[in-house]
């Protein structure tokens, strides 16, 4: 980075960065109100659906004796998957000293917090008796992957929040003192509380860096565990399609695909909506595109392993499951997910043109939708083919189709995740100002502590 020499220039640049990056916080126009109105409406409709489900029981869903995990669990796996990007970008890239990751790390953390929080919520919503959730703490079995999963989701959520919060402290301290940016008073009061009397002295920075480093190291095993343990919920059964040893890494690889595409979409939205072209540069999209194509290739490799090897052997039960996916009722979904959602993006993103912001965002949207359907394909077809024959049951027990209540609650989950992201974006800068300044060679302390410099 070219260091900017004169303090005057430094101040100018810093002011511009600060001004640009606080626009999301200040901006209050019709569109913002309409967006929050939409979010609140959908959340209310979703909660109303949930009240119906609690009132009448899980019979209002499409889940029956055989398919007892439906769209909710697919959502759960999807959210856990998306949340994993927080660990990849804000920790792994940081520790590998890949500097472009800094610009997107707060975006990634926003997604991680929203997704992992909703992963927890959707599990409670999947329960016919949500009050029995407490039984996990009173009567949980340490040998059960469900206990491990609950532990790791809570731990990951905590770490993600801390990892979002810690790099925020210097920014909050700076914004707390600035009156000329038009930030609402209550937000500045909130910054004052949250910035913990930050003065930006060397000792504080040292402690901050130390704490961040501990978290970044800690989130690696926890991040890997969260999705590996989620995969064990499936892989520790004998069911065909789930009974495979590679399910852990397979899930982790798939998670990076879903998360990277979510980050790209959110970057593009911020860039467009808040005019942050100079911060989420074409360069960042190019790099994110390369990251996406890399994780897609890893995921493709696992997919080939996951389907070619059992497909070669076609063991009885496994064969029924695979034929259902390859040419049965789920074949169109399966091939769309594999070809349009994985192979085609890889082929396209390899070309530089498709790593430009708009094409990349469109491809990412396709990848993200395909990632959701991929989770649906992991959960449901396997349950429709138990080892014992399905007999003497009503027709609708044999196949699963989500009901309108399930779709409503699923919409709620997505809207609630968007709401969390939106609130975080309206409250805090979407890029760490001080890290950006540091990158540009600006001594932020000098400028904030002694603002009257010439």
């Amino acid at each position, binding site marked *: 980075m070219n260091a900017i020499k004169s303090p005057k220039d430094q101040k100018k640049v810093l002011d511009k960065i600060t001004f640009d990056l606080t626009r999301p916080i200040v901006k209050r126009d019709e569109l913002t109100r309409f967006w929050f109105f939409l979010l609140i409406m959908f959340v209310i409709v979703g909660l109303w659906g949930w009240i119906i489900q609690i009132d009448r029981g899980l019979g209002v869903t499409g889940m029956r004796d055989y398919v007892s995990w439906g769209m909710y669990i697919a959502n759960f796996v999807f959210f856990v998957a998306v949340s994993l990007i927080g660990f990849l970008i804000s920790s792994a890239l940081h520790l590998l000293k890949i500097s472009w990751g800094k610009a997107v790390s707060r975006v990634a953390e926003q997604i991680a917090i929203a997704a992992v929080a909703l992963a927890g919520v959707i599990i409670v919503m999947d329960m016919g008796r949500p009050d029995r959730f407490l039984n996990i703490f009173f009567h949980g*079995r*340490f040998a*059960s992957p469900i206990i491990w999963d609950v*532990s790791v989701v809570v*731990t990951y959520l905590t770490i993600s929040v801390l990892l979002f919060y810690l790099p925020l402290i210097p920014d909050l301290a700076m914004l707390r003192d600035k009156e000329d940016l038009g930030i609402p008073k209550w937000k500045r009061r909130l910054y004052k509380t949250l910035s913990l009397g930050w003065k930006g002295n060397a000792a504080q920075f040292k*402690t901050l860096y130390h*704490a961040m480093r501990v978290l970044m190291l800690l989130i690696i095993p926890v991040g890997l565990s969260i999705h590996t343990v989620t995969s064990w919920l499936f892989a520790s059964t004998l069911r065909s399609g789930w009974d495979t040893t590679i399910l852990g890494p397979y899930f982790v690889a798939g998670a990076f695909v879903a998360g990277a595409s979510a980050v790209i979409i959110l970057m593009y939205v911020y860039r467009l909506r808040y005019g942050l072209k100079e911060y989420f540069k074409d360069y960042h999209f190019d790099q994110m595109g390369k990251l996406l194509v890399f994780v897609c290739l890893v995921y493709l490799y696992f997919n080939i392993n996951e389907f070619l090897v059992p497909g070669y052997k076609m063991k009885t039960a496994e064969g029924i499951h695979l034929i259902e996916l390859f040419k049965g009722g789920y074949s169109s979904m399966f091939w769309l997910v594999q070809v349009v959602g994985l192979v085609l993006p890889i082929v396209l993103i390899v070309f530089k043109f498709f790593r430009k912001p708009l094409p990349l965002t469109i491809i990412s949207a396709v990848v993200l939708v395909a990632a959701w359907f991929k989770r649906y394909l992991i959960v449901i077809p396997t349950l429709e083919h138990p080892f014992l024959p399905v007999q003497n049951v009503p027709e609708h027990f044999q196949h699963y189709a989500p009901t309108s209540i399930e779709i409503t609650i699923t919409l709620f989950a997505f809207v609630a995740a968007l709401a969390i992201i939106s609130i975080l974006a309206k409250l805090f800068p979407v890029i760490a100002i001080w890290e950006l300044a540091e990158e540009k060679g600006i001594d932020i302390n000098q400028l904030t502590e002694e603002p009257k410099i010439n």
Partner: protein
Amino acid sequence: MRNLIRYIFITLLVFSFLNSNSQEWVVADDIASIQNPSPYTLQNVNKGKELYLKNCKSCHGDAGKNNALPLVPIPPDVTSAQMHANSEGALFHKITAGRGTMPQFETSISEDDRWRIVNYIMNFNPANEPLLVDAPKINAKLLGSVNEAEKKVEVLAEFQDKDGIYKKLANTPVFINSKKTFGKIKIGQATTDENGRAVYQIPETVVGDAEGKIDIIISMEDNYTVNELLLENAKVCAPNVAENLFDEAVLWGTNDRLQPWLLVSYLAIAVGAWLAIFYVVFQIVKIKRLGKE
């Protein structure tokens, strides 16, 4: 071309042969003359009836109602003269082998049971006295006790005669069953003597619960109306010493049979992660304190 004509000709010939044959199904004499090894008793006829209703009725129809399916040839009614023109051996052979639309039952019904179906058909033979008569059910009463020392069940059976007086029921089978969650399983049967008493020795092969106890139900044939007798907690069996698979400490066990390494690993990881989180929280507190200096 010549081949094709020949083929069609042969096919037609075979068909006409089959068709003419369908009018008459002749069974070789040595097979037709086989005697029915299954005695002509009410029990066998009843069993035969049960099998008939399950396997044959769908085509042959209800006995005496001539409501068979309109197949070619029409399956004869069990009461018809056409049916009873067959000897018992011939009936058995036809059930076993089948032909045309009549399926074979060699693989789906045991030999004994096929003979019992013949028993049932013979109930409608004019030469036999029908056993299946719609007689009114007889009221009966059962008393019983368990001799745990000798592992015997003793039963006293009585029936109500025309005047409403209970009398000893002689020469009648009573059934000894074990009570199960969804009904009962027959262990064996004993026949009452002239005093209406029957004694049944529980075989040594019967296994009870961990203490060797079972719940015994004593029942009678269908033509009696009787309250089945329940003798609970009869300690007459070998105790069940089967190993409980859940006793072993396995990876997926309950908390009291948890493998120690698993608990240690879980706690070490969880506690370790949370200690690190608390350490970070402590650092945040430290940042605040440093701000005040």
